[in-house]
């Protein structure tokens, strides 16, 4: 067993080998390409969408795919292709901001209490358990219904609730690393506490947090689109896949194209994130097989 922190030694230029490892796996390659395409699409979709996403045309109501409107039109006569192209922007924006924030605050608290330990830590873990035992949708809906929908409420709400499970993960990882030989070795070498935390603990816990963040991202996206589907996410006429599926569901028996396009958009993004997260976990050598579902 090596007596110095494995990841610290490779810290220089670690990004490139990890990326290479991810891209060497077919699942990682597909995942990263999907995520990259979706981010690119979110950036350029306003300029490539063929029609205005909120332009209503009663003549086109629920019309099937045609030469002018490739994917048909929805129940208000809006172009489905334009709305599908732009349907991921809000979701990516909200989850893209909330995920790193959640991992940061959850990770900070988790590492801190993992280091402090003792009775404070014990009490905190009971509170975390208590929060985790409440269904996510109930916690979030209560806040959203009270304070209103919109990005200003959704981002803090998602950040708060998705940071709580991160506390647990970061704390467990801290406990795990602290007991390793290289930490003992650093202590024996006479390194200061700060230096051990900074140079031995953090680089190793960060690996776990990165994988956790990638997984949280896909769960958060799931939560966001479910909220939109239930009518608590984005407000119309903003195009969003969850909301589009919910709107088009009622007309599914005679206009199924309205459901299929957003379903493909949402599924490819979530599958892409999951495949990338899996590949990242394997590249960093973190076993996620034992991970329980949300």
């Amino acid at each position, binding site marked *: 067993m090596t007596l110095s922190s494995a990841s610290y030694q490779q810290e220089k230029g670690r990004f490139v080998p990890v990326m290479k490892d991810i891209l060497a796996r077919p699942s990682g390659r597909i995942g990263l390409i999907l995520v990259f395409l979706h981010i690119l699409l979110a950036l350029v979709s306003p300029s490539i969408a063929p029609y205005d996403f909120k332009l209503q045309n009663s003549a086109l109501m629920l019309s099937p795919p045609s030469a002018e409107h490739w994917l048909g039109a929805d129940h208000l006569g809006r172009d489905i292709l334009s709305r599908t192209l732009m349907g991921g922007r809000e979701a990516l924006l909200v989850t893209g901001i909330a995920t790193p924030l959640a991992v940061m605050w959850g990770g900070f608290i988790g590492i801190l209490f993992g280091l402090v330990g003792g009775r404070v830590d014990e009490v905190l873990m009971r509170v975390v358990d208590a929060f985790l*035992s409440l269904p996510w949708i109930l916690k979030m809906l*209560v806040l959203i219904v*009270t304070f209103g929908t919109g990005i200003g409420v959704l981002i803090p709400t998602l950040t708060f609730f998705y940071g709580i499970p991160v506390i647990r993960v970061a704390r467990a990882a801290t406990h795990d690393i602290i007991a390793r030989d290289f930490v003992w070795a650093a202590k024996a070498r006479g390194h200061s506490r700060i230096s051990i935390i900074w140079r031995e603990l953090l680089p190793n816990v960060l690996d776990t947090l990165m994988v956790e963040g990638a997984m949280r991202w896909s769960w958060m996206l799931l939560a966001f689109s479910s909220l939109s589907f239930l009518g608590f996410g984005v407000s119309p006429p903003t195009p969003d896949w*969850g909301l589009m599926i919910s709107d088009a569901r009622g007309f*599914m028996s005679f206009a199924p194209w309205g459901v299929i396009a957003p379903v493909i958009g949402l599924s490819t993004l979530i599958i892409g994130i999951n495949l990338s997260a899996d590949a990242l976990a394997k590249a960093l050598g973190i076993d996620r*097989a*034992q991970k329980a*579902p949300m």
Partner: protein
Amino acid sequence: MLFMLIRRVLLGGVTVCIVSLIIFSGVEMLPGDACTQFLGEYQADDEILAQCRKDLDLNRPAIDRFAEWTQGAVSGDLGLAADGKTKISTIVGDRLKNSLLLAFCAMSLGIPLALLLGVISGLWRDRLPDIIASTLAIFAMTIPEFVSATLLILVLSIWLGWLPGIVLTSAAAPASEFFPEILLPVIVLSFVMCAHIMRMVRSSVIDVMASDYIQMATLKGVPYWQMVFRHALPNALLPAINVVALTIAWLLGGVVVIEVVFNYPGLGRLMIDSISDRNLPVVQSIALIVASIYVCVNLAADLLTMIANPKLRTMYMRKQ
């Protein structure tokens, strides 16, 4: 061992207490109270508000009301809904029964299937059955429930016309009346839960089959299937208990989206409806029930794992 069991049970109790505290103080901290929400649409003036608060006993300190609420909850009396007339236990009772029915049906279809698929794909790792099952599992785990539900309605109910796509039975109807409407939500739920359990079982079967004692058994010449059934599976299925427990807890409390999609009158839809109507007493009660179920199911799983696994049992004993 006994000490460990008692400790686990006590910790579960503490968690439920903290949950009730979080629920109560969370609702207290929200702007407005039951009266402003109930009377809000009538533009209530101060006098009516004061009268309403007096009627609903809202003038007493929060600690008193918390004590009363928890006492009631322990004895099964959840108090009155926001309209001040309906008893929460009657509203919640029917819905809880329906949620249990849905969860029971999904479990009896999903768990055996998941164990079977998990063992098959673990034993034939990276072969065709494993590749098909694992790919399907990734889809089932990642795609949002409302997407898979919508697609299944489209295919099974609209295009093929095999199953009814929506539940029209009322909440108070007896369980038998929910058939065959319940089948499609059951299929979706078991599809999702099957994926989680299957992945877990698969990786644990792979671990166990690679372990030393299985190799030893092979070298000793134990027939393959006897080895699988007698030596490998009992150990490989142990870790599945916890995943099964989490899935059960999820089934009993978190299937809001599925219930909305299929219009199923369970606890999840009651939760959404009461949140939308700001019927906070009902929301509090549901939160407490669901959290208690979650804690109990996880506790049961932990205890079961401890009892079933001699290694864990002795590990705890050695620690003390």
